[in-house]
């Protein structure tokens, strides 16, 4: 099962470097809000960074900056030697909801980006079907997106982001709107996709358990100003890939200890009244 990339392959893949990024929102009556303060973060191919924190800690702002939906007030984000300026197909984004196009069917949704970039129809349909197979939706290729369940819609969102073959996958609470059972299945699917593609994943969540399960690097963010308070290197995702036993991984004493430790951190952080639960 384990598949190691050769050194040359690693070299070919790009690296994501976030240096001294601050975001200052203009507020009303001259006041401004410091949403992010001096964020530094580096991602190599195969890294799975999970940003965890209470509402308002700036994790979505950080994702927006990487995606290019927002320009940092200070600092820069460099991907593969190129400075990020605006959105681009080398950074795929998966949203929490409301992001599919209901006038297109499942395949057309997945092929949307390829169509925008002028890929011929036969080729983009082939790619779309391949990505749909990877997320287990090949049977639903011709369904309207409003006739499939919320979990399936999120998998269409995953397939769509993968279809552009991006260097980085950016996920903004993609499982936040799903029920607990579907959510656990999707976590395993996301780990599979990460392991198969060896891309950089940047994932936002409120759930400590989800963060620990998925991450290779877990960053705990705290609000006002938004900054990275703690970093953890973990490998529960890899353990899942080796054992295919999510329950065992999540029941590991080490997993539980870390979960409690991080929950404690979040609850004791200043301004964390609405802090997340696992």
């Amino acid at each position: 099962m384990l598949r190691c990339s050769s050194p040359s392959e690693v070299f070919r893949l790009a690296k994501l470097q976030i240096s001294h990024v601050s975001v200052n929102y203009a507020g009303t009556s001259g006041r401004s809000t410091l949403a992010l303060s001096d964020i530094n973060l580096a991602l190599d191919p195969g890294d799975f960074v999970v940003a965890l924190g209470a509402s308002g800690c700036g994790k979505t702002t950080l994702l927006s900056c990487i995606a290019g939906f927002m320009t940092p007030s200070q600092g820069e984000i460099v991907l593969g030697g190129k400075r990020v300026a605006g959105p681009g197909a080398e950074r795929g984004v998966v949203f929490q909801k409301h992001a599919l196009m209901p006038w297109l069917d499942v395949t057309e949704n997945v092929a949307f980006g390829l169509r925008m970039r002028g890929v011929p129809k036969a080729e983009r349909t082939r790619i779309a079907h391949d990505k749909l197979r990877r997320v287990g939706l090949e049977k639903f290729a011709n369904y309207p997106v409003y006739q499939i369940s919320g979990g399936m819609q999120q998998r269409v969102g995953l397939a769509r982001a993968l279809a552009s073959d991006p260097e980085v996958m950016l996920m903004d609470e993609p499982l936040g709107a799903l029920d607990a059972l579907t959510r656990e299945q999707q976590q395993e699917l996301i780990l599979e996709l990460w392991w198969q593609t060896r891309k950089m994943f940047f994932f936002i969540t409120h759930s400590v358990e989800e963060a620990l399960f998925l991450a290779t690097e877990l960053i705990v963010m705290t609000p006002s100003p938004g900054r990275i308070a703690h970093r953890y290197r973990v490998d529960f995702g890899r353990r899942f890939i080796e054992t295919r036993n999510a329950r065992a991984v999540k029941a590991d004493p080490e997993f539980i200890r870390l979960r409690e430790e991080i929950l404690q951190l979040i609850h004791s952080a200043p301004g964390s009244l609405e802090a997340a639960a696992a």
Partner: protein
Amino acid sequence: MSTPVPDVVRSAEAPEQPQPVPTTKGYSIPGEGRSTLISIVTVFGLLLLWWVATHYGWIRDIFLPTPEKIFTSFGEAWRGEIQGGKPLSEHFWWSLFRVFAAFLFACVTAVPIGIAMGVSRIARGIFDPPIEFYRPLPPLAYLPLIVIWFGIDETAKIVLIYLACFAPLAMAARAGVRSVTIEQINAAYSMGASKWQVIFHVIIPAALPEILTGMRIGIGFGWTTLVAAEMVAATVGLGQMVLNASNFLRTDVVIMGILVIGGVAYAFDLLMRYVERLLVPWKGKA
């Protein structure tokens, strides 16, 4: 032939039939339930009231003729035996032509302008004041001006109906642009779409349900304005036919003409609803 099993034996051996569970409903919410039957009863009730009121002399014939008379006048009009001497079909086709010419012209201009207003602050700044100024004006108020500018032939009539259709259509297209979500736009950008591609492949399809609603409202305004448009120097048209009949106190022809205009407008609305189901099956579902 097999011997029939005695009834007594069968009922004794058969497993006890499960009692059917009675169905239930949720606690009633104000306004729920179907109203079709009530509507049908209302329509027939009104027709009956009409028949009784006219046959028993409650209302004079000149104010409200009997239903049969309306039917007869429909036949007369069909054969062109009313004042003016033109058959109903000719009135009908001319009115249809005026409304549809104006409506189509409104669609091809108002929809792009409305979308431009939604996606560009410059277009919004330019078109907002004139549209918002003339929109609440009654068409009869600016009809004299249109006659001065465009004369009394077809152009003036079509322009008047066009203006009536334009504003609701432009407003609908502009509002429709708002129905796209920021996530849909950002998703398209992050898949490599350009600004123009976002407008054509994301914003316009997302606005389509509202545009179609605007078309329904727009054509409704068009029919409403038809009679006003045909008040000036028209020799043919449903509105003209009604006005002309009123000059001769032919109340039956007036009512018949009103029913025809209403019927056509309703038929077109049904057609638009069908087009809506065909083009935007996702409406209200996503």
